[in-house]
């Protein structure tokens, strides 16, 4: 039904027609007409953040934990530029976001008007697509198209920049939530002969491995279910990227733990030695592959991805399949079940025996300590004491993030929100705000580092305002631990600017925000404090004082191969070549 309305009304209408119920934003001159409409309706709830970066991360947390599109509303100029980090983060991690930005009126565009910036120019490389809407008659269509583009194919952030005069102008709005796009039509079904070939290759493997990633999560719950089916019927070992944790349950029999730079010894060794690799919904990122010319040298590689540009980008693969993970997995499971020949049982037994040998290294093991809280222990306890609850975890970036990935065991998809591709410190706290908004009764914990969390700490105020009882669990080592670890390994132990001096008193800080603070520094007090924290129905900052110099292992140093992992401290700096040092 077409109707006359203003551009600002159209924004609200289109969001409601898209099924949006929550948006994250911050007002300003160039979006006042939209804010004016917002306060006169009841379908949309707005969460007022404290910084626009926080709005995007909150929307990311919301999106990743629900499978819906996250929606952001910010003003022109500084509002838009503040959103750029969040948009880039969403692009790197394929999170569907629609970000509406206000713009100066069309007649002022290009005049260096107050709070003008070239939003579409600035955000072009950090969005999947963006629009500047200069005619109110285009606005409804563009808004619906933005949702279509954000959520179809490989998901990503989309910016819709709306000049203020367009928000005031009256035009015709047609509710067209279903878009058949004239150019953008991603391929969903995989090529059948290629899938058949892939199943044959898998079935004839002697040392197979399944390596899955965030694409499984993006594809939806059915993809995780089908992945589990495939693992069950093949009996093959499975590992996952950081972004894919939870798609296959960490308690599952075939789980080898995460792979990559801080992955388990068994996962990385199996990647190196495998003869057939199924990579599904992952992209051979440099954190995963280690040294490229030594990556899985003997493997026939199958790669399933919805984005053709991910295929043969870093690693040449033998069987590329372009399509949505769930669709391709469905075909694979069906074809596997229909074939009569069985995989080489003997070879598989030997392969699993080899994996068991690798496992004996206990690569995630660490030295226990009765006096000082080891960071790994803190995560273990947090996991044990929360695992029977409806729990969602976000993280910041650093050692704590890797320890969380290693020691918190995810059983379901959409439970783990972390900044993988961009590695954005400051992601976790606002992401927790968004997650809690989407799941009001769940236990939402940001596993944080004391340095990262200060980057977006102001969002505690948002959490308090909306009574979002997020738990900020800080592994406080008084260091940018991950930076220090690299300085120790690669820069002759010269600790340059990575010690966190003058840290705030986190307990008082919590109280200043109107939240609740905890501090624990004895292993013996940890359990009770965590239990107490869970019971608090308010936002919490938990200052968990951990061992200051613990390092995160195992580790594949940059420029090294999967079978050249470091399992603990005591390596000489010279061991990493200059070529490796230039890598990040």
């Amino acid at each position, binding site marked *: 039904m077409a109707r006359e309305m203003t551009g600002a009304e159209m924004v609200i209408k289109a969001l409601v027609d898209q099924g949006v119920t929550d948006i994250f934003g911050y007002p300003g001159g160039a979006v006042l007409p939209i804010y004016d409409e917002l306060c006169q309706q009841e379908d949309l709830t707005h969460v007022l953040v404290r910084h626009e970066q926080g709005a995007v991360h909150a929307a990311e947390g919301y999106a990743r934990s629900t499978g819906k599109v996250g929606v952001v509303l910010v003003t022109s100029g500084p509002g838009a530029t503040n959103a750029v980090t969040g948009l880039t983060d969403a692009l790197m991690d394929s999170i569907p976001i629609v970000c509406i930005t206000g713009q100066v009126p069309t007649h002022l565009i290009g005049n260096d008007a107050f709070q003008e910036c070239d939003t579409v*120019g600035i955000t072009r490389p950090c969005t*999947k697509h963006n629009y500047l809407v200069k005619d109110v008659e285009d606005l409804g269509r563009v808004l619906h198209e933005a949702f279509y583009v954000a959520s179809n194919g490989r998901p990503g952030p989309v910016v819709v920049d709306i000049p203020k005069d367009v928000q005031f102008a009256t035009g015709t709005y047609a509710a067209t939530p279903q878009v058949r796009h*004239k150019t953008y039509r991603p391929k969903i079904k995989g090529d059948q002969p290629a899938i058949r070939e892939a199943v044959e290759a898998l079935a004839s493997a002697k040392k197979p491995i399944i390596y899955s990633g965030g694409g499984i999560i993006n594809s939806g719950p059915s993809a995780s279910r089908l992945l589990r089916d495939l693992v069950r019927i093949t009996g093959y070992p499975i590992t996952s990227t950081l972004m894919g944790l939870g798609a296959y349950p960490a308690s599952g029999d075939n789980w080898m733990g995460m792979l990559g730079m801080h992955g388990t010894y068994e996962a990385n060794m199996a990647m190196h030695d495998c003869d057939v690799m199924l990579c599904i919904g992952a992209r051979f990122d440099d954190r995963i592959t280690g040294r490229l010319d030594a990556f899985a040298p003997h493997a026939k590689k199958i790669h399933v991805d919805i984005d053709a*540009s991910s*295929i043969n980008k870093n690693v040449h693969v033998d069987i590329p399949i372009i399509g949505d993970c769930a669709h391709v997995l469905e075909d694979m499971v069906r074809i596997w079940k229909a074939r009569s020949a069985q995989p080489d049982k003997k070879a598989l037994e030997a392969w699993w025996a080899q994996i068991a040998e690798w496992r004996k290294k206990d690569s995630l093991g660490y030295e226990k300590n009765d006096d000082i809280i080891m960071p790994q222990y803190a995560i273990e306890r947090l996991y044990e004491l929360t695992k029977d609850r409806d729990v969602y975890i976000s993280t910041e970036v650093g050692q704590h993030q890797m320890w969380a990935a290693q020691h918190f065991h995810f059983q379901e998809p959409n439970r783990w929100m972390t900044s993988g591709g961009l590695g954005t410190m400051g992601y976790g706290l606002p992401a927790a705000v968004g997650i809690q908004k989407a799941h009001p009764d769940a236990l939402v914990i940001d596993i944080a580092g004391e340095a990262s969390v200060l980057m977006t700490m102001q969002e505690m105020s948002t959490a308090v305002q909306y009574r979002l009882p997020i738990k900020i669990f800080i592994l406080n080592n008084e260091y940018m631990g991950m930076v220090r670890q690299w300085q120790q390994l690669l820069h002759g132990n010269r600790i340059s600017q990575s010690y966190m001096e003058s840290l705030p008193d986190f307990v008082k800080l919590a109280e200043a925000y109107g939240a609740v603070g905890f501090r624990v520094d004895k292993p013996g007090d940890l359990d009770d404090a965590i239990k107490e924290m869970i019971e608090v129905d308010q936002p919490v900052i938990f200052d968990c004082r951990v061992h200051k110099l613990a390092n995160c292992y195992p580790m594949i140093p940059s420029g090294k191969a999967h079978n050249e992992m470091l399992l603990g401290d005591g390596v000489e700096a010279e061991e990493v070549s200059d070529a490796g040092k230039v890598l990040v």
Partner: protein
Amino acid sequence: MKPEISESHTISVLVDNEPGVLARVIGLFSGRGYNIDSLTVTETEHEAHLSRITVVTAGTPMVIEQIKAQLERLVPVHSVMDLTVSGPSIERELALIKVEGKGEKRVEALRLADAFRARVIDATTESFVFEVTGRTNKIDQFISLMKPLGLSEVARTGVAAISRGVGGLSSDS
């Protein structure tokens, strides 16, 4: 790994003629570190608002494959065709070339222009402007011949390219 050699490819891209589309394509090349040896763009189907971009680029086969996949996933892109591998194709470029001089050099310039089928489209007693079309290397050659004869200015369109025979780049693929 075997060393891969860089090869030149001519790629045609059919896009919606909307603001920013060229910036998207150029940003893709600069942002990902791909080469642009030549780039032309203009509206080719007015009613349908379609523009055709012809880009000549160089890279290893893996990079060329990436470039095509990256172009294909841009939202306003209708279709991408690698003319270098999709069959026989024709490439042409047009150049306007100003040569200044007198006497014997002037005569020589005219003689060479004739051999290259370059047309004189402007003349004064001390200058010519030649119009020449052809493949890039023909134009390069003509320009280098004009250098000692008083070459003063060159304007080139960049490469336009199309496949031979029936069929080609269409908006509904």
